[in-house]
């Protein structure tokens, strides 16, 4: 990977919550380094509490790491850079008092996009996620899957080079997840965005990712990176292929021990 192809460069990042000796002291992330190529979809997977969401918040500039640096296109990161990085959160984080299209427009308003441009982009991104007919609904009137589509539309409308997704389908049922995953793969293969995607689901990771970074139990760091050589958009048939099963099994073997460790630790240590 030459320097120009690196969208995100994570260098020796560690993070702890609280100070040594305090009750809420947690070493969430330990000495993690990783490069993310431009246009790549990277999945972070690991046991609960392994620091993958912490790493995502660090990359997004929402959290300043205790140690280490993050570079975005070669420039060191200090706080959120909304022009380059957009977020999709676990709990959709749509404003319940705004309609779907108002939610999408609001993100662009925060960025200072002119009015006419806001309207155009909002319509386009809602069409892209298949929500054009629900533009004037309130989030409370939508199903969980549709809310996540709306949240995705809001993130897409910001037209950033980098998209960070924190278990965006975590609260959804298996079937909705599957459909959203397929649609996402189609959508993202068109946009050439760099994406970091946190997930708990082995299948989701293999189905979506170009590379999967497997985290160890807390304090988390990257244990192994697995490459998924399969062109985007991924076809539904990929799920039933031998290649998919083999990769999924490899991930399962890597994760199994770490999840046991994490469960044991939380049973003894009490910091869940």
């Amino acid at each position, binding site marked *: 990977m030459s320097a120009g192809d690196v969208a995100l460069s994570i260098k020796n990042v560690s993070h702890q919550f609280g100070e040594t000796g305090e009750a809420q002291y947690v070493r969430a992330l330990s000495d993690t380094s990783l490069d993310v190529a431009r246009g790549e979809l990277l999945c972070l997977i690991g046991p609960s509490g392994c620091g993958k969401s912490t790493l995502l918040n660090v990359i997004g500039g929402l959290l300043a790491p205790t140690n280490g640096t993050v570079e975005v296109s070669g420039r060191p990161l200090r706080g*959120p850079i909304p022009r380059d990085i957009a977020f999709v959160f676990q709990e959709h984080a749509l404003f319940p008092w705004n309609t779907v299209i108002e939610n999408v427009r609001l993100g662009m308003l*925060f960025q200072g996009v002119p009015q006419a441009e806001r309207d155009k982009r909002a319509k386009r991104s809602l069409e892209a996620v298949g929500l054009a007919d629900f533009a004037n609904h309130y989030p409370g009137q939508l199903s969980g899957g549709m809310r996540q589509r709306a949240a995705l539309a809001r993130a897409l409308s910001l037209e950033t080079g980098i998209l960070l997704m924190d278990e965006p389908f975590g609260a959804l049922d298996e079937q909705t997840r599957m459909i959203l995953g397929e649609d996402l793969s189609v959508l993202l293969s068109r946009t050439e965005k760099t994406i970091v995607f946190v997930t708990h689901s082995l299948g989701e990771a293999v189905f979506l990712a170009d590379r999967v970074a497997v985290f160890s139990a807390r304090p988390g760091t990257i244990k192994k990176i697995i490459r998924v050589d399969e062109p985007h958009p991924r076809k539904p048939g990929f799920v039933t292929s031998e290649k998919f099963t083999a990769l999924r099994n490899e991930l399962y073997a890597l994760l199994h021990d770490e999840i046991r460790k994490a469960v044991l630790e939380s049973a003894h240590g009490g910091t869940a």
Partner: protein
Amino acid sequence: MARRDRARRLASRAVQIGFLLALFLLWYLATNVWGVNKLLLPNPISVWRQFVDVLRSGAFLPDLRVTASEFAAAFVLATTSGTIVGYFISRSRYFTRVFEPLLAGIFSIPIILFLPLYVLFFGLGPASKIALGTTISFFPIALATIAGFANVDRALVAAARSMGASNYQLFRYVLLPAALPVIMGGLRIGFTIALLSILGSETIASLAGLGHHIVELAEDMEMSRMFAYIVFVVAMVALLNFAVSYLEARGRRHQ
């Protein structure tokens, strides 16, 4: 489904109206048939005549003006001070931890007991009523403002920040709309108890106002006219409450 809901709503309305009619009937029977002393309970028909006379003659106007202006001043003062103080307390977790229980504690005291002090400080006129009404309604408004702003979903704040919202934009588009329904609840309570404490303190120690006039009529033993004034106040308050409910319903129609 909607039809059955409407039928059920109509049925409960009918029972409510029936209950009120039954009360009136009891009142009528008590005074006209069972012979309850007219000084204790005046006849509903003579109360109605007095009520019509009060409305026609406009005799209520000077007292209504006093009470209404006291109430308006108290409510505006309490709303401004309560929301501003509440907002600034809610901005700091330390202040919230320290002052929220303190304000809640003071709110639980019957502040009306301090009326003699208020009269000493501010005199028998409207000033003491305004001061008392402001004090009493300040607390629920400040407490609701703290609760509203302190409990904004952090995911929404993080989302707005990640999209580059400025401090002003965060307030205008996230914090304020999130807190508003809770603040409205506090305003509602403040509204009711400001009115209650002002009318109440007018009956205890005052120079003018609807409460004052009602006590005056009682002392002159003009029971029918006193009841007519009570009916008038109840009608005014019901009207105000209806207006507030309507505004509130409009405000939260979209949620």
